[in-house]
């Protein structure tokens, strides 16, 4: 299956290699570099690249290319999904998955990779198990380790690997037993010029942070489970129970994990929290243009819209922008041609407005294309779909846990066409 893995940074430096079968020369990456050059943008590199004897399957994450070498037929998604899992594990271990952290923790990275794959086949990918095998670095432990010479490798085999609950580590103990659930909903929408919704749907996830002792068996139920159109679960969730009773019943992994993700389809009416009035036009002569954007609340269910950011990808010929924002700050980057307007909190009494002129490259023809606006926003204490957690019950343990649910709505891929 997966033969070798190379990590390559954005500048094209290969800074880590790992082989699970016999060594493959790193010159194989030349095929990748070739494709990388052709693609111009890093996210346009084809995920699968062919070389005469190998196939390179790569992902691009956090400015790092994870390039794996394959020799024989394997489902490409298998590899892609695994590589993402590797990146997530790094993130989990080191707080972020960047070139620096990987270089700083190269031994742990190597040990992790060793455990995650055996002969190219995934072995242990659950974070709970890995953490028992190889302890994540903390400042305290690394200090202690340097003094005592003790290791960050677990002494015994994690029980999870053997039990029928491979995602939970054994012997968990907390003094404060708590379980928090974040219902995060993202609105994916495309609005057209006139503000009508071309397409809108809600993508939700429930992130959990469960710190409970022993082997708790939780069940989470919703007030309105019918809303959920399509769901996917963490492996700990019992499918059958959901199928028959619409209750999420599970023995949680320890710590942070994503319990489920769901989808509320375009068939249901999706409330669009804000409206955008925009007018971006370029003049035939004079190499200039005008921009006027106003944002206002639409269906906010009485909550405040926060962290409102409008991003505009301008045509290449736009050199600079001379604008005036009634609220927030704007910034135009002439290199990436991105106009970023950070509004902050939306005040319904006084609608934020950004207005002014754009100057174009002199002599260049008026751009034909129309830039589109990407919106970012956040609404606290609201799940826009109306999904509500009904109750959380715990079985199997005696203590009384502290429970909490938080709702957040965000803009996902929220785009306004002009």
């Amino acid at each position, binding site marked *: *299956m997966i033969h070798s893995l190379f990590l390559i940074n954005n500048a094209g430096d290969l800074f*880590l*290699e*790992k082989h699970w*079968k*016999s*060594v493959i020369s790193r010159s194989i990456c030349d095929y990748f570099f070739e494709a990388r050059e052709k693609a111009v943008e890093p*996210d346009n590199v*084809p*995920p699968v690249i*062919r070389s005469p004897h190998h*196939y390179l399957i*790569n992902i*691009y994450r956090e400015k790092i290319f994870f390039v794996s070498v394959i020799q*024989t*037929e394997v*489902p490409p998604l298998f590899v*892609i*999904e695994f590589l993402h899992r590797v990146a997530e594990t790094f993130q989990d271990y080191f707080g972020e998955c960047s070139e620096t952290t990987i*270089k700083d923790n*190269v031994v742990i990275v*190597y*040990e992790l990779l*060793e455990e995650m794959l*055996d*002969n190219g*086949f*995934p*072995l242990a*990918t659950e974070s709970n198990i890995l953490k028992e095998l190889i302890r994540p670095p903390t400042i305290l432990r690394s200090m202690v380790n*340097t003094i*005592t*010479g003790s*290791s960050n490798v677990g*002494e015994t*085999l994690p029980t999870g690997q053997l039990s*029928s609950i491979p995602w939970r580590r054994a012997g968990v103990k907390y003094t404060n037993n708590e379980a928090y659930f974040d219902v995060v909903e993202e609105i994916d929408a495309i609005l057209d010029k006139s503000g009508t919704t071309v*397409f809108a749907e809600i993508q939700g996830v429930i992130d959990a942070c469960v710190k409970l002792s022993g*082997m708790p*068996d939780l069940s989470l139920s919703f007030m309105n489970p019918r*809303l959920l*159109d*399509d769901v*996917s679960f*963490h*492996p700990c969730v019992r*499918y*059958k129970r959901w199928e028959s009773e619409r209750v999420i019943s599970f*023995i949680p992994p320890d710590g942070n994990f994503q319990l489920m993700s769901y*989808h509320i389809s375009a*068939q249901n009416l999706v409330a669009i929290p804000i409206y955008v009035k925009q007018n971006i036009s370029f003049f035939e002569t004079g190499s200039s243009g005008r921009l006027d954007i106003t944002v206002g609340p639409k269906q906010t269910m009485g909550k405040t819209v926060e962290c409102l950011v409008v991003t505009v*990808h301008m045509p290449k010929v736009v050199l600079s922008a001379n604008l005036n924002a009634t609220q927030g700050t704007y910034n135009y980057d002439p290199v990436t041609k991105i106009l970023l307007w950070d509004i902050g909190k939306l005040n319904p009494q006084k609608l934020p407005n950004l207005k002014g002129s754009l100057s174009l490259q002199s002599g260049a023809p008026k751009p*034909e*294309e129309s830039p*589109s606006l990407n919106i970012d926003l956040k609404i606290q204490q609201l799940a826009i779909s*109306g999904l509500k957690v009904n109750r959380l019950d715990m*079985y*199997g343990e005696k203590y009384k846990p502290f429970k909490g649910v938080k709702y957040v709505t965000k803009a996902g*891929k929220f*785009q306004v066409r002009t």
Partner: protein
Amino acid sequence: MSASSAFSDEKGGSASEPEYGHDPASGGIFSSDYKRHDDLKEMLDSNKDSLKLEAMKRIVAMIARGKNASDLFPAVVKNVACKNIEVKKLVYVYLVRYAEEQQDLALLSISTFQRGLKDPNQLIRASALRVLSSIRVTIIVPIMMLAIKEAASDMSPYVRKTAAHAIPKLHSLDPEQKDQLIEVIEKLLADKTTLVAGSVVMAFEEVCPDRIDLIHKNYRKLCNLLIDVEEWGQVVIINMLTRYARTQFLNPNINESLLEENSEKAFYASDDEEEEDKKAEPATLAKRKPYVMDPDHRLLLRNTKPLLQSRNAAVVMAVAQLYFHLAPKAEVGIIAKALVRLMRSHSEVQYVVLQNVATMSIKRRGMFEPYLKSFYIRSTDPTQIKVLKLEVLTNLANETNISTILREFQTYIKSMDKDFVAASIQAIGRCATNIGEVRDTCLNGLVQLLSNRDELVVAESVVVIKKLLQMQPEQHSDIIKHMAKLIDNIQVPMARASILWLIGEYCEHVPKIAPDVLRKMAKSFTNEEDIVKLQIINLAAKLYLTNSKQSKLLTQYVLNLAKYDQNYDIRDRARFIRQLIVPTDKSGALSKYAKKLFLALKPAPVLESPFKDRDHFQLGSLSHLLNAKAAGYQELPNWPESAPDPSVRNVEVITLLERVTTLTSIPDWSKCSSRKDRKEKKVEKPFYSDSEGESGPTESADSESDSGSGSASASGSDESGSGSESEESGEETESDEEEEDEEEEKKKRKKLDKTKAKKQAEESAESEQSSSAEDRKRGRKAVKNQKSASESESESESSESEEESEEESEEESESDTNVRKKRTPVLKQPPKQSKKESKKETQEMSLLDLDDYEPAPASASVTPVNFLSSSLVSDLEGLSLTDTILAPTTLAPSGSIKMYELLHRIKGEGLAVEYCFSRQPFSPEPNMVAVQIQFTNNTNSETKNLHIEDPRLQSGMRIREFAEIDVLAAGESVTVVMGIDFCDSTQAANFQLCTHTRKFFVSIQPPVGELMTPAFLTENDFKKEQGKLMGMNEILEKLTLGEKCVNEHVIVERVTATANLSRVPCGSDKECRFAGKTVSSGCLVLVTVTTKEGGGAQLTVNCEKMLIGTMLVKDILQALSQ
């Protein structure tokens, strides 16, 4: 290897490069090349573990950077027996990396591992085996073999798993060992733990993927364990089982594929040709053996389905491809939702999924149609994703959605991403070729693009226009002229070549311009690109043949230029053409035919998706993605002609009952915390203990197969479930031949309906061999003759949605067959209970009812299956016969149809026109409202040529005119039916009604109630749907009932008179429920009237289209309060 070490040496040479170690001072160590590792060696030789660890860490860091650390081998290998577990681990890492290079030294470490293999700690045993099998030293092959064999029967499943992992390692090291390894695989395949299953199947796939016979005995176990195997194992197992199923089971679409071939043809073929097909069809169908799905096949489908909910994209994709390749057509649809969900994932995942969706959408377009909008493109998508989405959108385009898609494409053309714009233009071209109705619109749009400022856009448009024009050149000579003008400005070679080709090909349409273009091109010939040059020669040759007077010299000149061109292709071409067209004494026999050769009619190009026929590769595979066979790809075998013996999968029952506990199937697992408890539970559990256990994934194989056939006996009810509840569909449907045919029948009819062929629908009904179909048809014809609005027709024809048709079949089949008796529990099930549960119960009940068959002790597991299913066939045969004979019932009142005036007698100068909404489905286009128009000629002369002209409609609305009435004699009247798609709005449709002398402006405005058709829901479905349409979609209104609204009956009558709804059965007499769907978009409209004491009532309308809802409320309020 040598290459790499050379490389690393070289790298190592540049010692000044800062080394990142944990010790900042270590940088200085590398000053001298030769002895640079001396300090490391010292550290390794020291007694302190901390120093050793430090050294090992730095060595591993070197390995990670690809530097050569091989000269440290002796120093490192000494530490293999180190007590410190981390040092040991790092030594292992080193060993695995370098053992191959230093085989002799590596042997020193072997004894440590051999000792490790005997260690009481399973962790140490496993890791010893892992390293031993990883070090690729050929001499130790026998030792490895022995170790693997031993580990395969280890007590610890973790060690057994490691053994499974070691198998492919040994195999790649020494393929000679294959036979022995297969023995080990066979042994491990029988393992009953989920931990081992994934790994051993992986080994199987790498070592002996063709030994399908090893799977037989383990098939059911693998199916049942599947849900609890870790995710990576699931992918491997599902892929393997897909291949297995292809060799062992019959094609579930065996009858369908036959139909499909025909229907495909029927789409385009003329009617009579099709009729022949249909006649031939029953014969071929009859020849085939009735298809009964193997219970094991069903088991696989059922047990993989929940995995569509997995968080792992690879698992979802694996299940999706399994369904695509193995499931009956009707069930494949469930994967669409999951695949669409994956599209929200990382862009690499999106890329792969879209590739697969593109392939699937060609074969099964209907599957993804509801998710059309999920494929809309955002400006922030990477180009490769955009292009793939475009591909899918193009594949999904059909007559009904093309207008939306084209509107979408229009926005894409304005994008900043030029590659994407080019792809969009091509997509428009493909839509235009595939869908004739929009060809002109597309062409016009593309011609407009010719004035675009961006050259790339223009060029791409030219190329696409060229292809489109080729289909009907006569009508478009002005476009050709326009393009001829463009040749001065366009620089993109491909576009220039296309224009020249067009002018040459249709030079007869543009006789004046063509020679002039050639003149210009002759001037610039030397500066052109090769493809343009070839086309210039081409143009010259064609002009010479058609218009030699004007172009003779020019042609000569061009050919002379070409003769000395640098490119030999061009020289060759010039020479060849000169011989062919210029008459000389030597010219051969061919020159006579020159004209025929050059000016032959060329067939229009077929713009095909690059994803066509890619599904011969297993979907989701690397080979599919690359569209080329990857190394080690296992072909997906074709279905066998006849099923191999299913009994090979039978296993001794005792071993099966001894199953592994599954967490996911037993909800209150944590309560029985001790192992002993669990065991007890296992034993105690009766065979058919409860519904929970029965459908549990770890159930023993043969009880599974029993329940499978059990569900078959209840298939009537299951079937209805599968249609209406997508999340349950296919889970328990054990389709049986008759049912299957029914299904196909309906599906097909639906398809044809869409493509406006009522006639075809009837013919397909004919192909159904049961006489009942004919009965129905006859009945239908009779109805039509009477032109009455009998609603029985609306019922029998309105099989628009599967849901409905299924429901209908259930209603219809309420006759006194024994099958029905068994089904009654479903119908009488208290509504509160969830559907799922009720189904399970009935399943059990019917299983027991059927022939009083007692579930036999499991030893004879297969015979009863056959027995059951065969008796089932006969049962269901009865069912399907009775099913259609019964007259369908609807609750729409007859005789309450209101006539509206379209044209008054006086205004129309003697011609009076009235119309009504007949409430029959308009069969040529199911999403149109049928309007019945009655013409009465009150004059004393004939009126001729009655027809419709110049419809002025709101956007989106469409009209389907009635056939022109040639003559309407004096005093006569005639009735015709036309269809109007009001787009679910009450906007009037304006048009002119023309006679041979006069034109009248008229308009038809529908009351909101006529914009819907009845939908047939059960009470449960109604409640479920209502639950989905809460909030803003619900309108509540209180009212006082009118004096005459005394009883339920009147209310029903009033409501159904106001709106074309059907009544939903309801337990309470205080409530009346009605359901319908809007005609155009099929949105559900649910109406509930709750009566209260003293004439009060409450009206609830649930509809996604709020406007329709509000208007309907108004209308019904009025009707009820009168």
